[in-house]
């Protein structure tokens, strides 16, 4: 009941409502722009959240995530270019429907499916998070350290065929987190006498460089935009599905809800995996599988429901354990940390108004997504048709202005440029970004618990094996890395076996 009261208080507060509305609007527009992922849309807003009250800031960021999942389907359906990774599955049947003159219908299915998925995910989030968080109350400093290590290991192991690169990225992230004044002894580390580095390197700067700037660099290096190239978005009028249609599509929605729930809670899986799995399963269980790929309504609603469920359930590990499982939730975690809030079990007792307020804000955001989604289609089509160079220039302008507004320091901007180079080099060489970001945001938590744990045994590392939870988590981390390593070695051997007869 207390939780409901906090949620109601948040929902009825004007700043939270405005944040949910602004976040959804920004998210839909950002998601609609190919190249601006939900995480980039969120990262661009991060500097603005500094001056906002904590609840308003986190609701704003979470609402961007909600809006971007729908926004991504707009160009996927209209121009066959997914605005977000998770909208890629929608492209198949959404665009086919658009070619048949049913683009408005596809957009309606995406919007309604997304809203249903978002609300379903929210129910799971509210019911699962607190019970999982209670479990985390059993955690001691060694267990927290082990949890951080497990989080980075899981994310690194998901780096397809690049386990070592993923782990290296995680270690590099933690190394960046050690720059600045040591919070325990007050000794400065790796500052080279520069006062700008005494407070450390803020993760916002790295996030903006790694996500936004490296994306601008990649787009600049890609094929040149040609003057006169017009986007073929065409015209579409949103057409909402009737209740009868929705009832007919209930199986596809159910599949989207179930798979979105599971995939969202698994770190690293994310919306795109959930969307493609739902698409496949919806086809498998469909009475009209032959329609898939040729404008199937089920082929649109299943992935769209799934990726919006993920936008809520992806918050479960973030809020329960303080371990984000995706780029977007890592940025949301950053939004919490900026305001001195550490997501995890203690947040439910120390700041219940934030947690339940966020749930209330997400509920509002999902409803607003439905309402705004109906009216924003025109501006989105207009935006999608803008020349790419204008969009890139506007993003660059927003990055340099937003970063300066954090600490009024040009030095921070140099760090963003450097992080952009690092992000670009990582992309070129196939190093995943997420482990680095995770190492960066979890670095402080890992180090403080590492040192606290060692205080218990006067520096003896046996403490991590004596604590049952820590031992269990570290074993899991070792297993995750071990299994990934074995899988990687097997993948390596395969081409050799095929290659030998060819060589003979």
């Amino acid at each position, binding site marked *: 009941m207390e939780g409901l009261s906090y949620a109601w208080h948040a929902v009825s507060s004007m700043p939270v409502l405005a944040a949910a509305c602004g976040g959804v609007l920004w998210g839909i527009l950002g998601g609609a722009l190919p190249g601006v992922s939900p995480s980039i849309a969120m990262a661009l807003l991060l500097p*603005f959240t500094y001056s906002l009250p904590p609840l308003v800031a986190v609701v704003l960021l979470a609402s961007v995530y909600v809006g971007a999942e729908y926004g991504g389907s707009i160009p996927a359906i209209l121009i066959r270019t997914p605005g977000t990774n998770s909208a890629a599955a929608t492209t198949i049947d959404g665009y086919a429907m658009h070619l048949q003159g049913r683009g408005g219908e596809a957009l309606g299915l995406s919007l309604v499916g997304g809203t249903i998925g978002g609300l379903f995910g929210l129910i799971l989030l509210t019911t699962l998070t607190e019970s999982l968080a209670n479990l985390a109350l059993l955690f001691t400093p060694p267990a927290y350290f082990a949890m951080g290590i497990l989080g980075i290991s899981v994310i690194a192991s998901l780096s397809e065929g690049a386990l*070592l*690169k993923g*782990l*290296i990225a995680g*270690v*590099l992230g*933690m*190394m960046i987190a*050690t720059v600045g004044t*040591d919070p*325990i*002894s*007050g*000794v400065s*580390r*790796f500052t080279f006498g520069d006062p700008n580095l005494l407070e450390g390197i803020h993760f916002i700067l790295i996030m903006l460089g790694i996500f936004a*700037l490296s994306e*601008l*660099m*990649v*787009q*600049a*290096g890609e094929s*040149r*935009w*040609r*003057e006169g190239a017009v986007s073929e978005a065409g015209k579409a009028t949103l057409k909402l599905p009737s209740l009868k249609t929705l009832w007919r599509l209930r199986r596809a929605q159910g599949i989207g809800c179930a798979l979105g729930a599971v995939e969202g809670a698994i770190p690293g899986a994310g919306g795109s995996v959930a969307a493609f799995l739902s698409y496949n399963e919806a086809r498998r269980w469909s009475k009209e599988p032959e329609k898939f790929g040729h404008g199937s309504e089920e082929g649109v609603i299943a992935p769209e429901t799934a990726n919006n469920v993920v936008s809520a359930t992806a918050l479960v590990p973030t809020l329960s354990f303080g371990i984000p499982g995706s780029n977007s939730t890592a940025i949301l975690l950053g939004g919490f940390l900026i305001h001195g809030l550490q997501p995890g079990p203690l947040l439910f007792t120390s700041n219940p108004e934030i947690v339940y307020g966020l749930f209330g804000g997400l509920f509002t955001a999902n409803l607003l997504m439905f309402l705004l989604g109906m009216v924003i289609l025109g501006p989105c089509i207009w935006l999608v048709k803008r020349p790419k*160079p*204008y969009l*890139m*220039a*506007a993003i*660059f*302008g927003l990055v*340099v*202005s937003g970063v*300066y*507004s954090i600490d*009024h320091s*040009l030095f921070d*901007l*140099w760090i*963003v*440029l450097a992080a*952009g*180079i690092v992000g*670009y*080099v990582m992309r*070129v060489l196939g190093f995943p970004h997420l482990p680095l970001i995770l190492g960066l945001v979890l670095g402080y938590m*890992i180090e403080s618990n*590492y*040192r606290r744990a*060692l*205080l218990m045994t*006067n*520096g003896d590392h046996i403490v991590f094996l004596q604590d049952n939870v820590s031992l269990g988590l570290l074993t899991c981390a070792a297993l995750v890395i071990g299994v990934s390593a074995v899988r990687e070695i097997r993948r*390596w051997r395969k*081409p*050799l076996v095929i290659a030998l007869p060819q060589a003979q």
Partner: protein
Amino acid sequence: MRGTLITAILLFIFAVVFWFAADAIPKSQLGGTVGADGLPKLLAIALGVLSAGLIVQSLLAMKAAGPAVPAEPKRRSGNIARHLWAAGMIAIGAVYLIVVPYLGYMLSVGLLLLTVALYNGKRPSFGLLLFAALGAGFFYLMFVRLLDVPLPAGFWPALVG
């Protein structure tokens, strides 16, 4: 593969340098049993081991792939051009950072918008100038007026007196 190998060697060297830099962190009685250098040293060792693993992996991959076939010169030069073009965005950002204290925020951000759009394929036109001017005005109003961010004013105040 060669790029990965070179990166792995550089990372290994970085791990060694990081270890020595961590070792040079002043010791403090307040640092506890581990000290401020504890985790950084552990990270340096981890990076060293992982990058050594990556070196071995790259060497094995190169061996398995057989004698290196040089990439087509056209494709290689295309790749270099792509990276240089991407690096150009950083150069634009660096120039912005150098000029903004002198030219002031509004003019600099307008020039930034203009340059980035031109650099990415937009032809010079009145529309482009309008975009840069309106964009600079929008950013100025949002950050300086609305959010009260003291962005660099440049030489303008001195000029006005």
